[in-house]
């Protein structure tokens, strides 16, 4: 589709249209949709009975129950509404490093693909950027498949940069969001684990359904390009650490990163969140389609 990145090929978009967002709880929507809503409505799914009162539609009287109890009851049904989907994209400076790993570009692709799944399913999508040096998109929901291109343009305008305190940033966003829904948080989560858990824990407190998508660079995970004595500088804080990298040190560094990822995943599982890890040396399309369940998507 014109206006979309090259990775989103027509074949891949067709696969995305087969997916829909899966939630573990029901959220009220803003219009008719395909997700069950806690509201009562006219869907086929039975919800409850109530006593008949004047003016009720005769068609919803349960005549079988009237025969057994000699009282008139009206059948109530659940409402099906659209899903409010929030995509939180980490655009801090750490997403731009290591150079050549294309971490931020991969995160943008994931955000766009998730947004496309939601838009193609008739759900509403709001893009929120955490950190970054570009223009913060307006806090409006996009609706309709044709808005995917607008979503791509908004994502294209974002430049990674600056320092990010994930917990504080998410807290501010939650205050601004008035309506609960499905949240996707896309970040490298390369920060202290307690910061990550505190930030993600805010969503569970707000009864939101969350999927954490961690994006790590392939070279970043293996420590490529780091050999001998190296002075590493934190892209966000500027902290400097002198290390001597050999094969043993590279392996230890890799194990540390994997341990951090495992801690985040364990936290997500414990709190009923979805978690997916994407390393940029993998094929993006292959990751997205294979990890659909981990991303909180369903066919």
């Amino acid at each position: 589709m014109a206006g979309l990145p090259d990775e989103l090929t027509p074949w891949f978009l067709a696969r995305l249209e087969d997916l829909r967002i899966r939630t573990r709880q029901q959220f009220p929507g803003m219009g008719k949709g395909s997700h069950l809503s806690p509201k009562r409505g006219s869907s086929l799914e039975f919800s409850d009975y109530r006593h008949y009162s004047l003016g009720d539609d005769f068609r919803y009287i349960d005549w079988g129950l009237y025969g057994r109890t000699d009282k008139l009851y009206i059948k109530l049904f659940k409402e099906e509404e659209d899903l409010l989907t929030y995509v939180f994209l980490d655009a801090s400076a750490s997403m731009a490093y290591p150079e050549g790993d294309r971490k931020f570009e991969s995160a943008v692709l994931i955000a766009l693909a998730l947004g496309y799944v939601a838009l193609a399913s008739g759900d509403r999508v709001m893009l929120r950027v955490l950190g970054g040096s570009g223009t913060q998109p307006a806090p409006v929901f996009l609706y309709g498949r044709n808005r995917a291109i607008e979503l791509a343009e908004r994502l294209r305008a974002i430049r990674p940069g600056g320092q990010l305190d994930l917990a504080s940033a998410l807290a501010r966003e939650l205050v601004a969001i008035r309506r609960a829904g499905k949240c996707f948080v896309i970040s490298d989560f390369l920060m202290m684990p307690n910061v990550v858990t505190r930030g993600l824990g805010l969503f569970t407190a707000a009864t939101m359904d969350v999927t954490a998508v961690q994006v790590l660079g392939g070279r970043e995970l293996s420590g490529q390009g780091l050999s001998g004595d190296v002075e590493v500088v934190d892209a966000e804080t500027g902290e400097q650490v002198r290390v001597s990298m050999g094969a043993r040190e590279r392996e230890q560094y890799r194990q540390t990163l994997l341990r951090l990822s495992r801690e985040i995943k364990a936290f997500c599982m414990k709190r009923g969140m979805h978690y997916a890890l994407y390393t940029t040396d993998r094929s993006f399309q292959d990751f997205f389609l294979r990890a659909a369940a981990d991303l909180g998507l369903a066919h």
Partner: protein
Amino acid sequence: MGLLNPGALVFLALVPALVLAYLARERSSRVTVSSVLAFRALRALGQKRFAGRPRFDWRFFLELLVLTLAVLAMAGPYVVRRENPIAVVLDNSAQMKAQTASGGSRFDKAKKELDAMLAAMPGESAVSVYLTSPEPHRVNAAPLSIAAARSAVRDAQATDAPADNGALVNLLTELSSDSHYAKVIFAGARALAPPVPPGITAITVGDPIENFAIGSFVLRRESFGSQALRASVTVANFSTAPKTLKVAITADGKSLASAESNVRPGETAVLDFPSLAPAAVYQAVLAPSDGFSLDNVAYATSASVKSVSILFVSPTPDDAKGLGSIPGVSVTTVAPDAFSPGELASADLAIFEYSVPKEMPSVNALLVMPPPGDPVFHFDTVQVRAAQVTAWRATDPLAYSVNFRLLNPGAGEAFGVHPWMAPVVDGRQGALVLRGERDGHRFVASGFNLFPYLGRQNLPMSILTLNILGYLAGVGANSGGYRTGQPWLVPAGIESVILPSGQTVAAKPGTLFDDTASLGVYKLVGRHGAVTLRAVNFSDLADSDLLNATPLRIESHAPAPKTRAVTAKAPLTLYLFAAILVLLALEGLVVYRRRSAAGV
């Protein structure tokens, strides 16, 4: 152990450079990462390094070793090896082709016995192998191992050239007096006359055998202008009883003539074959055959089958009219100004009247009254009004049957002393006729004009003229001069020589051609593919006498030389370079595997 080039050790100063290179490489680089979270745990490891000094890993020490080895290789290390070389002299001359009573040639038997002797020697012995023919020479530049020496002996080939006994004696004398050699082994047909110097072990193969031989095979024209040839074959009987020796002449596969003679022991006879039909190659075969077949056959070639072509260079071409009247002679006249050396290619001989070519002609030539001071022949002439013959060489072929008392040369010129031409006819003021050979060609200079009298009633002048022309034109028919093993001068215009074996060898005119170890007919190929045949026969009758071969006498000037071990420097440079290559390959392999494993 020592160093051939100790000065190269200065390159060890590169070691600090290597250390500096490592220090520079180990200098910490600055890299921006997404987060230092995972690196904090590694910082403790870095602080463990002693005093923050650079880390010299295995690659540093390996490259230090490679650098050291390279410098050492440049210094040329060697080890001193003690060895007692043995000299082996194998006679591969033509006489070794003679058959032995037990069958097989002398050469095969000598090689077999020599091989057995070498096989019994200690394996670490170093051997120098010498062959005697066509001239004594060493087969290998450096001493060989026993196995290599046995292989060299097995691969040796006997030649058709006779042994140069003088050179062989000199070689054996030199080797026996050389204290470097622990032992000298001579394997040949000649025995060593006592006293044999100590240190020489002789392997004498082949008993004296009776032999019948062709000594010479000479062709000449019956007369100048005649196509018929006359052959003379000398045969010898080296046996203890009189023998009838028969010689058959064949040419181009056809039998032409045969003759025989009863020859007493130790004597020779000459068989004459008149009026042989023209042919390119003549072969003489001696019967009965004997145990040494090399001297039972001889070859001769003839260029007389075609008419004699004369190039006449003269400002007065009418003088050549008389030449054209000789049967079998064709004359081409050309003015001196129009003459070019290329015209000689189609001529058998050239006549320069009142002129001299600007370079040495590539054919036999007659120079009639040449101008003085020419840069080629350097004739020193004196004008003579009425030349008178005062002396002549009666045995010279040019003077044959000439009545010089009746010869009246008239006006002409007399020659002074010439550097390479000898006088044949002398006058009062100097030589009137000179003769000589240069670059394989014959040249005659005449101080008076021969041709106005040719064909007239001046008989002495006509006979002298025909003698001169016969001498100049007959060289191609003379086959007696070329012997196996003897080099000859490459004639002018010859570019290559095809050996009897069919092998083609490049040749340069004016140089010695020494690839003459084979008996047979050699083809001298000139420009435009013109071919001249040249017969090369076995040496002379002295080499054919296998019955009375005299022993070789080795002179021992000094008392028995003490054999002392020879020290040789065995360079180790190659081993060092091999070690360097192995180490570099090892480093490359390990680095590649580690990088592959790390995904770099």
